[in-house]
């Protein structure tokens, strides 16, 4: 039974990976030349960001974009520090207070949207920075009328410990996958680190959902639901601070994964729907498969853990100090011939797939492999932590635990 589950899991992983691998080599022509740059508002929601906001604003002011067409709006979401004062020092920046402070980023964005009377608007987290040409590159994606949002390539800014280095690997992989999704028109996330939207479309769809914990995923899925496109330009580079502690990372991931579950359920009508094309018939079933794969892996792991724990406790209770005599190391031949192909084959396949995908992700991002303990942890302990994130998120969504952003 266990072997069968493992084989099924690795079969699915290989099948899905091979599918994406073929997508890499799909050539799709996109018209990216633009003559008249549209007007754009940059919305920067900020909560207690006095340390980062100045850098963020400076990077926006440094953007290579016609200044007369750009409006910078900082939405102070009830900060208790000097965020508002710091932002107000910049003369070209419009600072507003969120009247409904503290209820979430979506509320702050909706407040800012009231002042966005431009053709496009961008959302930029207050702890992030943009590269000079990023906005121009994103705006180019709006040549197609059906495109309602465009996202950038996010890089980790604060590389300082194991947690941030692990997230660097994740961001490289996420960018790679988002790029592939963009190629087949199934991209359904618009992260807060510089995503550009068509203002009239978002206003027509009644702005950001203030009840949602991942408004960036919700709005992108809503756009998909109404058959709008979300595109990615991996040439538009942005930088963000990621959580640098276990607690910070835990909280963020639980929120993200709860958002994934919440929004996939919210837009379940798209599942296998003809009207939603590839998104309905391919991407959402893939999301569902991912979800069930995680559940299966979890149960398998728990079963193995309990089994091994039970065996060891039994051994200890039967043998007490004599357990020492059972410790022995097999010879190389015994080790090789003792390989249980039923376990080793699917595990090896899964490992090779992840290694290969990561290699391709690095290559496409023009990022170098960094060989440090974080890489080892990413392949060994981290998958267990991710599993724990998922299971906690599932549990909290099931019991409808309090949502925080």
């Amino acid at each position, binding site marked *: 039974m266990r072997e069968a589950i493992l*084989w099924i899991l690795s*079969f699915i992983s*290989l*099948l*899905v990976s*091979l*599918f994406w691998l*073929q*997508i890499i080599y*799909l050539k799709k022509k996109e018209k990216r030349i633009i003559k008249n740059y549209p007007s754009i508002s940059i919305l920067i929601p900020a909560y207690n960001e006095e340390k980062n906001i100045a850098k963020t604003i400076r990077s926006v002011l440094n953007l290579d974009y016609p200044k007369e067409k750009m409006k910078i709006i900082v939405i102070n979401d009830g900060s208790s520090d000097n965020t508002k004062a710091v932002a107000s020092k910049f003369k070209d920046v419009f600072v507003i207070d969120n009247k409904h402070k503290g209820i979430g980023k979506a509320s702050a964005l909706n407040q800012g949207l009231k002042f966005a009377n431009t053709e496009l608007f961008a959302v930029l987290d207050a702890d992030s920075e943009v590269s000079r040409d990023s906005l121009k590159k994103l705006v180019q994606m709006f040549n197609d009328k059906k495109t309602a949002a465009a996202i950038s390539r996010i890089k980790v800014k604060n590389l300082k410990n194991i947690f941030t280095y692990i997230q660097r690997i994740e961001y490289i992989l996420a960018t790679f996958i988002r790029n592939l999704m963009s190629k*087949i028109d199934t991209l359904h996330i618009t992260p807060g680190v510089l995503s550009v939207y068509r203002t009239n479309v978002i206003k027509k769809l009644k702005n950001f959902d203030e009840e949602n914990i991942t408004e960036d995923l919700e709005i992108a899925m809503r756009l998909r639901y109404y058959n709008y496109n979300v595109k990615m330009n991996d040439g538009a580079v942005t930088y963000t601070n990621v959580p640098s502690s276990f607690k910070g990372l835990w909280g963020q991931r639980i929120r993200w994964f709860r958002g994934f579950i919440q929004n996939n359920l919210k837009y379940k009508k798209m599942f296998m729907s003809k009207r939603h094309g*590839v998104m309905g*018939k*391919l991407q959402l079933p893939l999301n569902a498969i991912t979800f069930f794969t995680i559940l299966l892996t979890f149960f398998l792991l728990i079963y193995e853990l309990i089994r091994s724990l039970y*065996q060891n406790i*039994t*051994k200890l209770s*039967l*043998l*007490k100090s*004599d*357990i020492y*005599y*059972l410790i*022995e190391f097999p010879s190389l*031949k*015994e080790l090789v*011939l*003792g*390989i*249980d*192909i*039923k376990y080793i*084959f*699917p595990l090896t*396949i899964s490992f090779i797939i992840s290694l290969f995908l990561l290699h391709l992700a690095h290559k496409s991002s023009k990022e170098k492999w960094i060989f440090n303990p974080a890489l080892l942890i990413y392949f060994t302990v981290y998958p267990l932590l991710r599993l724990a994130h998922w299971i906690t998120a599932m549990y909290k969504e099931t019991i409808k635990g309090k949502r925080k952003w």
Partner: protein
Amino acid sequence: MVNYKKILLVSFSITILVFLGGLLLGLSLDDTKVSDLINNLNQNELNRESYLVEQEFIQTVGGSLCDLSSPRIQGLSNELANLGQLLTSYEKASLLKNSEYTYLKTKYFLLEIRTFALFTNLKKECNYDLNTMLYFYDQGEQESLNQGYIIDSLVESHDNLHIFSFDRNFNEPTLGALKLHYNVTKSPAVIINNEIKKEGLTSLNELKEILNYE
């Protein structure tokens, strides 16, 4: 227009091919394991035969059979134990439970019975300080597994204990006769020095007491 059906079909076909490759790899590893076991069995039989020839020679030219046997029995016992471990671990890890393992197990159990008879005789004739234990188990049964841990730790700590383990449900006439002789009705069961029979899980302390180990 992207042909997703074609992409999925190609992905599916490659996945099937990779998994078929894995299956072939597993089967070829199984073959290597079986050859390794056959080599080990042959080597074991050869060593046993060499010992018997030596015994015959000593009997013909006159000499002490017991002096000759002493250094060799430990070797024979260790080889047999290693072979048993290999057989168990290889069979557990085999991709398809094929008839070859049934054949190898039959040969192994017969070799064990022969060696057990030899050891029993030597103990009687030469008054060796050795203990024999016949161990009957049920594959996959927790109690048998627990008895296995106990016996393994005992063997590792006492050189003069020689174990002969048998799958109680294995269908082989000689093994059937052995079970009948000792009236083995359930697993795990141990027969110590041809005299004491214990059915059900026997604790480490109890076994140590019976065998005078402390």
